[in-house]
């Protein structure tokens, strides 16, 4: 197997929201940058985001970044790093306005300013009552944003490598990152992208679960590559289950529906959220709503012949509002639920949606690892942003609309930091480490020559079913322990997958097999981390973590107020403290989380 | 060199011309229809009298010019779609143009001689 080497100042892997935002920074600074993406940029999954992007613009009512920060810390169940959260909330207005200047078609208020809608967990005055903070373009915010940023990149002449799949991170003996190996999907050619700065923005890995709102391409490639290269993964036990995925199809119904006045009902027609969250009701934080729904279903108050979903009702809203603010939802209802939401409620269930954990970074977008006594030592030449990274601003549970904000803020800061580092370094490229390239060649060779191996489709399905059953909305001690074993067995099969198609030309079977290598790393990290964390926090809820005065709702701050770090080598865990000190304001003190 | 240059600057003019000449032809056809129904084609004499009317002569002139102009844009588009050689295109464009001008003159002569 042969390969060629190409040199760039910077290589960005991923052209979703985070990758495109970083690319703007580098292209504008004039650095020779390669942006690799396995799908055409506007096909990245950011396109699917519906509800909006958070910023305390205060266009409809008073708002403040400090309130936003409070909500985010509380939403994270205090696992988020408060310095990064302050940074993000303070930057929000700037990056959203910038996006508007790029041409983003936000909806407008009568006074011409950006339209804002309420969203779950976003409150005014430190948790008092819901506030309008989500800046939206109908229910197609992600689409509008992704296209606006792609278009901006066209303007600044960014060099894209479309339908190139990155395979492995290249690190040298000192641990410095020197680029990636990648395959041109159209020809099967392997190229080493040798760079002084490498930015990962590969998105999430929602496809480790059977039922997911994520695209087929969300296979955690960046996270898998980092893990194989010895970078630990942070807080991987935390997965957000979105309350409202279309039952059976998994397609998302935005929380914006509840923001516009939608109501969840059980089989008795009861607005059950009033019992679980008397204040915020249907707009409580996502983990809270998902659990309430699961409880309703488990207690027999689900709807439909199998009593396995609840209903999201908007029939009381004026049809004009629905068609103006939620036209895409109307379409999705008809396409994927066979329901006209103007007339009938939509069948919904909690569905895997977002990966809170990922590659550990700081607020500058640098990838950080524990090294020689320092808990967070930046890795030379390596940056990450977006869903694949863990800054960590979402902690144990992300608030809706904070992810698009995360892409903008940390995509930009990763790009800026890379630009600054490139400016500061006069050095030429460090020489390439041969072993890292050997790893890629060995993987591809193995796959091409595997005999009597496991079927990719079946193996992936087994992994997804196991994750769904053993590490879902509610987690059980015994199930988790058994799940760890099952996933370990499946990992053994993944190491021996076989494909029948051996063509060099656009071989999607090979692409999927290589993706599975990454998915399984994410699955392992998730279930091992979840098994070890014996408390309930945010999206991670266990049956054996009980509600006591010291551990409210099972949250055990004395033992578990810390970030998990999972190392692939030896399937080993380590922990690091949560950054409780913000940049300029006072710490937001620990409190029981109630909505 | 295989560079594509755009901006010939006459797209709108031709497009408009096609619409306008189309309308002229449609109007003329309608008038002829009406005339036929009204008996203008009942006999050779009636027909001659009708065609020697100054206004009708003017209209028929317009019709012929429109027809040729319309045909020019249409035929040229066909050459542009199917031929790649610029020299051949230019040659055919010129030939088409000359032929159409010739036809127009000839047709007008015939009609006005009626």
């Amino acid at each position, binding site marked *: 197997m042969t390969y060629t080497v190409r040199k760039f100042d910077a290589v960005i892997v991923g052209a979703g929201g985070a990758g495109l935002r970083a690319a703007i920074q580098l292209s504008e600074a004039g650095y020779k940058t390669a942006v690799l993406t396995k799908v055409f940029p*506007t096909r990245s999954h950011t396109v*699917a985001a519906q509800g909006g992007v958070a910023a305390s613009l205060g266009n409809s009512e008073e708002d403040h970044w400090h309130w936003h920060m409070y909500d985010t810390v509380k939403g994270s169940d205090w696992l988020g790093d408060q310095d990064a959260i302050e940074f993000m909330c303070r930057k929000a207005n700037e990056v959203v306005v910038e996006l508007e200047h790029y041409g983003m*078609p936000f909806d407008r208020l009568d006074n011409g300013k950006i339209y804002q809608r309420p969203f779950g967990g976003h409150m005014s005055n430190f948790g008092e009552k819901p506030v309008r903070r989500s800046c939206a373009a109908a229910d197609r915010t992600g689409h509008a944003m992704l296209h606006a940023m792609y278009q901006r990149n066209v303007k600044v002449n960014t060099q894209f490598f479309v339908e190139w799949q990155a395979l492995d991170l290249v690190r040298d003996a000192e641990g410095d990152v020197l680029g990636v190996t990648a395959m041109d999907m159209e020809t099967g050619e392997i190229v080493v992208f040798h760079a002084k700065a490498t930015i990962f923005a590969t998105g999430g890995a929602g496809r480790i679960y059977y039922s997911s709102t994520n695209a087929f391409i969300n296979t955690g490639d960046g996270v898998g590559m980092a893990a194989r290269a010895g970078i630990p993964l942070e807080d991987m036990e935390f997965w957000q289950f979105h309350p409202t995925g279309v039952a059976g199809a998994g397609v998302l119904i935005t929380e914006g529906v509840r923001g516009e006045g939608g109501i969840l009902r059980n089989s008795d027609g009861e607005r059950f959220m009033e019992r679980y969250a008397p204040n915020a009701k249907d707009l409580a934080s996502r983990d809270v709503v998902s659990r309430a729904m699961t409880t309703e279903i488990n207690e027999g108050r689900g709807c439909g012949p199998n009593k396995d979903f609840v209903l999201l009702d908007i029939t009381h809203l004026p049809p004009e509002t629905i068609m103006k603010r939620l036209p895409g939802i109307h379409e999705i209802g008809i*396409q994927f639920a066979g329901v006209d939401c103007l007339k009938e409620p939509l069948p919904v269930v909690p569905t895997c949606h977002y990966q809170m954990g990922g590659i550990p970074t700081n607020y500058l977008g640098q990838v950080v690892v524990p090294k020689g006594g320092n808990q967070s030592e930046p890795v030379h030449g390596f940056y990450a942003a977006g869903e694949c990274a863990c800054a960590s601003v979402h902690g144990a549970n992300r608030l809706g609309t904070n992810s698009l904000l995360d892409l903008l803020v940390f995509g930009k800061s990763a790009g800026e930091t890379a630009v600054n580092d490139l400016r500061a370094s006069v050095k030429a490229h460090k020489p390439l480490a041969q072993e890292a390239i050997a790893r890629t060649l060995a993987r591809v060779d193995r796959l091409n020559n595997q005999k009597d191996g496991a079927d990719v489709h079946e193996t992936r399905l087994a992994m997804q079913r196991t994750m769904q059953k053993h590490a879902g909305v509610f987690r059980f001690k015994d199930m988790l322990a058994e799940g760890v074993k099952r996933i370990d067995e499946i990992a053994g099969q993944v190491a021996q997958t076989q494909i*029948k198609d051996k063509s060099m030309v656009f071989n999607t079977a090979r692409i999927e097999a290589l993706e599975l290598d990454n998915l399984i790393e994410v699955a392992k990290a998730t279930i091992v981390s979840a098994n070890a964390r014996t408390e309930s926090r945010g999206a991670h809820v266990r049956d054996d973590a009980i509600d006591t005065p010291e551990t409210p709702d099972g949250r055990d701050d004395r033992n578990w107020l810390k970030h998990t770090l999972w190392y692939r080598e030896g399937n080993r865990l380590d922990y690091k403290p949560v950054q409780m000190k913000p940049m300029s304001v006072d710490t937001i003190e620990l409190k029981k989380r109630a909505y | 060199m295989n560079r594509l240059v755009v901006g010939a*600057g006459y797209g709108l003019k031709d497009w408009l011309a096609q619409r306008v000449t189309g309308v002229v032809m449609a109007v003329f056809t309608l008038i002829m229809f009406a005339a036929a129904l009204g008996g203008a084609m009942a006999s050779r004499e009636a027909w001659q009298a009708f065609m020697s009317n100054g206004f009708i002569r003017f209209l028929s002139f317009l019709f012929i010019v429109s027809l040729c102009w319309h045909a020019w844009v249409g035929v040229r588009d066909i050459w*542009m779609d199917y031929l790649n050689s610029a020299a051949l295109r230019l040659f055919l464009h010129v030939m088409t143009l000359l032929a159409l001008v010739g036809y127009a003159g000839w047709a007008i002569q015939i009609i006005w001689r009626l």
Partner: protein
Amino acid sequence: MTNANRTVQFKIYRYDPDQDAKPYMQDISVELDSTARKLLDAMGKLKAQDDSISFRRACREGGCGSDAMNINGKNGLACLTAMDSFPAGKPIVLRPLPGLPVIRDLIVDMTQFFKQYNSIKPYLINNDPPPERERLQSPEDREELNGLYECILCACCTTSCPSFWWNPDKFVGPAGLLAAYRYIADTRDQAANERLDNLEDPYRLFRCHTIMNCVDVCPKGLNPTKAIGKIKEMMVRRAI
């Protein structure tokens, strides 16, 4: 709702330049249960059966534009095409989008399509120094962009347009023209004049002969012909 297990016949365009001298149509059938609601679900089952069948897919919800193909003679997205919309008993015929070079099976080379898209300068041009806050736009002005900005660049329209088949290098095509009008119509954009100049050419815009194939196939219900008409109208208004 579709009934339980049934066998569905397919006729699929196959071509792998690595192995095949020339393209051929393959007959293949698959057993489907009630979870296969959309064509893309069924194709996933097909791929599990024969991993060499190649097509693009990503979002599976009609948002990304990856899985555009020619389905029973008409361009569309596999993920939005319901299985029960097919007449029973007849094979489902799948071909790549027409008018673009085939890379493999149902995967086409979209270079030309995106080249045309890029040629209309698909980004906001405003040379005033950016204000501190957002540029203002009234809800009415914003409404002008509805039906334009939602395009997912799937190319269903452009590859169904005969004018594009003849002049893929010179005619911008419906998707590109829709994007051109999206910026012409944006009150924040200052380059409407240059944008019109860029299209004032016998090919780029005026090769559209209002055949309306594009409107017929757009999976997002957009109307490129209407946008094209508006551009022409603006040109006329500018000229007189």
